[in-house]
């Protein structure tokens, strides 16, 4: 049960006789229970392609993606996506943005707003229900995006560099917020990031991806998010010798990949 990616490959055909581009090669990945899987890698390693596969925006060239045993054939509310930016509807206020998914599913206004308000509270946005989203800060807009994704009770939460556009301080706070939400809701999460530190701090499982062809080069099990949720402060977790040692190891892998590619 949960999400199962089996031998999935994505190959883009190219015009005028050049060889086709292998965006992803035979990916095997399981995201089950309350796994928090973080994908890390340089640009062009296929992280976003992998997310598009899971979300159903893209069909694999070969292999398959199974959710609770059923083949994924397109986008669906059981796999909600949080985007990096530009994904909110500026003509709706915060409440209607959060309730947007429920509205599309035909949920009547009263229960729709009730559910939305619950997640607005969870994300600490209660004072901004009627605010225009384009007037909010980047961090608050992202919280609206997360609340919106949660309303439809997805089995897997897909996050495509959700904190990439935030400043460093907001970003650290948002990391902690997402971990707490994840802990409260006990969802499977697939999370893409460029930041090694963010990847190590947030995930329970880390996949480091390599480009050309995009593939999973290394896998790690991570203890740090559990330590944080167990009561250790984020700064303490990130400053621990184990954290720093693993951070250097992962950085070394990524840089050696870059050199190999260059």
């Amino acid at each position, binding site marked *: 049960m949960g999400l199962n990616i089996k031998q999935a490959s994505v190959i883009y055909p190219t015009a005028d006789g050049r060889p086709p581009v292998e965006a992803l090669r035979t990916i095997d990945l399981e995201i089950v229970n309350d796994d928090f899987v973080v994908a890390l890698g340089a640009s062009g390693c296929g992280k976003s392609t992998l997310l598009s596969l899971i*979300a*159903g*925006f893209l069909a694999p060239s070969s292999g398959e993606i199974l959710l609770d045993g059923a083949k994924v054939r*397109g*986008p*669906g*509310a059981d*796999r*909600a*996506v949080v*985007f*990096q*930016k*530009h*994904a*909110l*509807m*500026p*003509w709706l206020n915060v409440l209607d943005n959060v309730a*947007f*998914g429920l*509205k*599309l*599913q035909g949920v009547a206004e009263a229960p729709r707003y009730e559910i939305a308000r619950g997640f607005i509270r969870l994300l600490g946005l209660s004072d901004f229900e009627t605010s*225009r*989203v*384009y007037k909010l800060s980047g961090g608050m807009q992202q919280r609206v995006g997360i609340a*919106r994704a949660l309303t*439809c009770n997805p089995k897997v939460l897909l996050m495509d560099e959700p904190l990439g556009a935030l400043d460093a301080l907001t970003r650290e706070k948002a990391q902690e917020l997402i971990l707490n939400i994840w802990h409260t809701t006990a969802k499977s999460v697939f999370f893409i990031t460029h930041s090694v530190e963010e990847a190590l701090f947030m995930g329970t499982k880390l996949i480091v991806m390599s480009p050309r062809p995009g593939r999973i080069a290394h896998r790690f099990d991570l203890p740090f998010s559990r330590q944080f949720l167990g009561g250790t402060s984020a700064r303490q977790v990130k400053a621990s010798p184990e954290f720093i040692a693993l951070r250097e190891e992962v950085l070394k892998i990524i840089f050696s990949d870059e050199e190999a590619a260059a």
Partner: protein
Amino acid sequence: MTEHSYPNTQSRKKGVLFFLMKARATKPGETYGVPGQGDTLWLSVLSILGIIFVWWLFTFMGWVKPMFLPSPQAVLGKFVQVWNEGFTNTPFLEHVGISAARVFGAFLLACLIGIPLGIAMGMSPFIRGIFDPPLEFYRPIPPLAYLPLMIIWFGIGETSKVLLIFLSVLAPVALGARSGVKSAAIEQIHAAYSFGASRWQVMSHVILPSALPEILTAMRIGIGFGWTTLVAAEMVAATKGLGYMVLTASQFLQTSTVIMGIIVIAIIAYAFDMLMRWIERRIVPWKGRM
């Protein structure tokens, strides 16, 4: 010491156009470096008064004969006279009403057809393939060029007049709506799909609202074309209307009536544009913000 670190502030301040020469720090509430900031109301009022003054000066000094350029007072007097007595036995407001009905009727029709057509063209390569050639073919042709055709086909009645204005409004409105379809970010569209939205829902809940700012702009441009075409539409067999008034007056060299008619058309068009801008601020306040 501090004076030396800002060498330009003192030396450049003397020039008459110094405000054009250098960038100055902004007041709180403004953003440094954004071009075109600031309130222009007083400058606009000054500009209009300046034009009227130069106009008056030319006529007052007798530099131009009244037949070519009547004085501002004469035009105002003509306005009062036409307002009271009408023009060619028709009350002034009836001329205004007839022209407005033609322009706004054609505009409404063009919006009712052009906006759905443009959206369909943006959404479907099939519809775009069919309607792109005829629209692009007639769009750059001046309405005066196909006016004779309109008259041959539809006669000299109201139909050909409204149709001429309609055609001049249709193209800009349809093309604006068509490009507005592309306003939605791919993330917004994907977000809707990932909630299980149907194609129809994506269109009504994402594509249409995000196209709205561009559709409103296209409507503003379109109504402008409508007023531009009005005089051409009232050239043949019209007995009422502002365009008819201007054309008839010109044949009798009543220059003051011509200028008065032009100003009345401009004022109506401008007032409507202000209304459209107000509507824009009300219903698409997010325009350009996200």
